[in-house]
């Protein structure tokens, strides 16, 4: 995957570059806003990572300019500003995701992969299938093999998110933000309990475990697909 990183903090940039290269991505780094915008316009990228505050050209302006010119490359905004309204501003400007510093690297890489893949699967689906697990949107029924699995509404949404990102690592924060639309860290690990309950329903009585815990990162449904 080709990633453009626009980040003026050299140390943070080196850390991200190293991590992404290890994960097998091709990465280009620029340290100021105007050359960042120039690069994003001149070349094709799968994902652009842009810092909120940059010399010469502000991160939000870059996002706005790119979107105004019709560029649809997925953009992740990095910021040390934690206010909810800052996040809203970032997403309104056209960013696809907003990550507050400091963050775990696993959080960043999970979000990059989810974003980069989202581009290719936007078509409306009537069903999702991972291995022998099938989710039917018309009947709102979930079956594994020949067994029907009754799910509560929120469990259905949680499983849907995991299935849409099958093979990718999704973090607890991503689940909390996308399934519940909650933007805070709960003191208790509610997501772990929710997922383990879902796992009880999905995996109990089957030989193959579909929902895997990725230590230090989050969860993954199905086999890695890269």
């Amino acid at each position, binding site marked *: 995957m080709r990633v453009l990183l626009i980040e003026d903090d050299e140390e943070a940039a080196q850390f991200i570059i190293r991590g992404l290269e290890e994960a097998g991505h091709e990465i280009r780094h620029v340290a100021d806003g105007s050359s960042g915008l120039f690069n994003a316009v001149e070349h094709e990228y799968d994902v652009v990572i842009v810092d909120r505050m940059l010399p010469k050209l502000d991160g939000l302006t870059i996002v706005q300019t790119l979107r105004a010119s019709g560029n649809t490359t997925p953009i992740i905004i990095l910021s040390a500003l934690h206010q*909810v309204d800052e996040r809203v501003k970032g997403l309104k400007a056209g960013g696809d995701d907003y990550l507050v510093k400091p963050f775990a690297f696993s959080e960043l890489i999970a979000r990059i992969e989810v974003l980069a893949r989202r581009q290719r699967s936007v078509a409306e689906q009537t069903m999702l299938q991972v291995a022998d697990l099938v989710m039917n949107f018309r009947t709102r029924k979930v079956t594994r093999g020949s067994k029907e699995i009754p799910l509560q509404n*929120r469990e259905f949404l949680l499983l849907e998110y995991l299935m849409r990102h099958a093979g990718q690592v999704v973090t607890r924060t991503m689940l909390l933000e996308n399934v*519940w639309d909650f933007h805070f860290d709960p003191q208790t690990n509610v997501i772990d309990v929710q997922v383990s309950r879902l796992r009880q329903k999905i995996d109990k009585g089957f030989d193959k475990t579909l929902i895997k815990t990725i230590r230090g990162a989050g969860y993954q449904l199905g086999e890695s697909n890269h």
Partner: protein
Amino acid sequence: MFRLFRSSAFRLTLLYMVTFGASVTALLIFVYNTVISDMEDDLKHSITVQEADLRRSFGLLGPSEIATSLQHMLEKDEEKTLVLMLIDRNWHVIAGNLEQWPGGKTSVDTWIKFPIGKASGSSLPPRAIAINTTLPGGYILLVGRKMAEIEHVREIIVEALYICFGIMFVLAAAGGMLISYTIYRRIEAINQTFLSVSAGALQTRVKVTGTADEFDHLAVHLNQTLNRICELIDGVRDISYSVAHDLRTPLNRLRHRLESILAQQMSGEKMTEEVRKSLSEIDTLVATFNSILRIAQAEMGAGVEQFADFNLSEAVRDVVDLYRPVAEEKSQQLTTEIAEDVIINGDRHLITQTVANILDNAIKYTPQAGHIMVTLAIADSQIELKVADDGPGIPQEFHHKVTEKFFRLERSRSSPGNGLGLSLVSAAVKLHRGDLSFADNAPGLMVTVRLPLK
């Protein structure tokens, strides 16, 4: 320094006095005119009566008798106010106390006013008023009175006017100074207070005199504003101290962990474990910082302009759904009674986190198989959210302390948490102009959040 003429109170008083003076003058002029014309009417009346009398006598007695009778009347007039005269057709004076006929020859059968005698000093010469009548045989009779009394009254009124103006001027000046000084003193007290506040004496307050006038109201409001500012400053100071103190412990643990990784020859597996623990320590620290930031934002009132209507019933239900599995893991019974479609104007994320923090606490501190009840209702035209449990509760004396930042009960120090959960709840509730209270649920704790209906 008190500058009288630049004081707006003084200028207003002067303006008031000028207006007042103009009305008094108008009143006096009206009184003067009424009195003078009344007196003139009286005078004219008695002149007319006498003139009619004399005219009748003339018809009966003839000119020489009348002349004698005129002389006689003048002699008997002790107050010397009568003016009488009789002339013949050739304008020869037959009798009377005037040296010559007043006015022109045309002024016959009319009222005339004329000066009489010499002017004494600076005052005007005395005047008289008279009527003249043509009698049979070409004689002309003039009957009149000196206007001394009227002149006297006029002088009195004019004098009164002058005295009045004099007194008014003195009163205006004195009153103006008094009023403006009184107002100046009250304003100056406020000025001085704010000067010392801006010079750093933050505890200075405007003195409230207790008269409950508009200055007292102003003073009370200014003091409230100052108190609020002080609270905010204290809050910032408190949190700086708290952050410095309470973050030392986790930082210290982190330091030891990193040191031991550096110092000991660990196996790869053990080292990975140590690093993992360090990372989770850092995550806790970051979470604490995030909480501090959110509390600070709520306390500063940030985000009020982004308040929007949302369905609180749904938000509460979502939070309960999120936590239900956690409660079930502890075999706790989580029951709800949530009124439908309670709409609130506020920050959805902050309110959601508030509800989550309260419920999180209830589940965390209520033992296995305990009961937790979440109620959302509208009571007394307020939104009332209650979370009640039958856990250990919070002793009464700590009810007001649990919302302080980093405060933790002694017995819960070992359980996870940063002592900021309820501080955020308190700040968020305050931001939404609500009220947070704790009560003994006998046994357990009941947390009540009251929020204004939109």
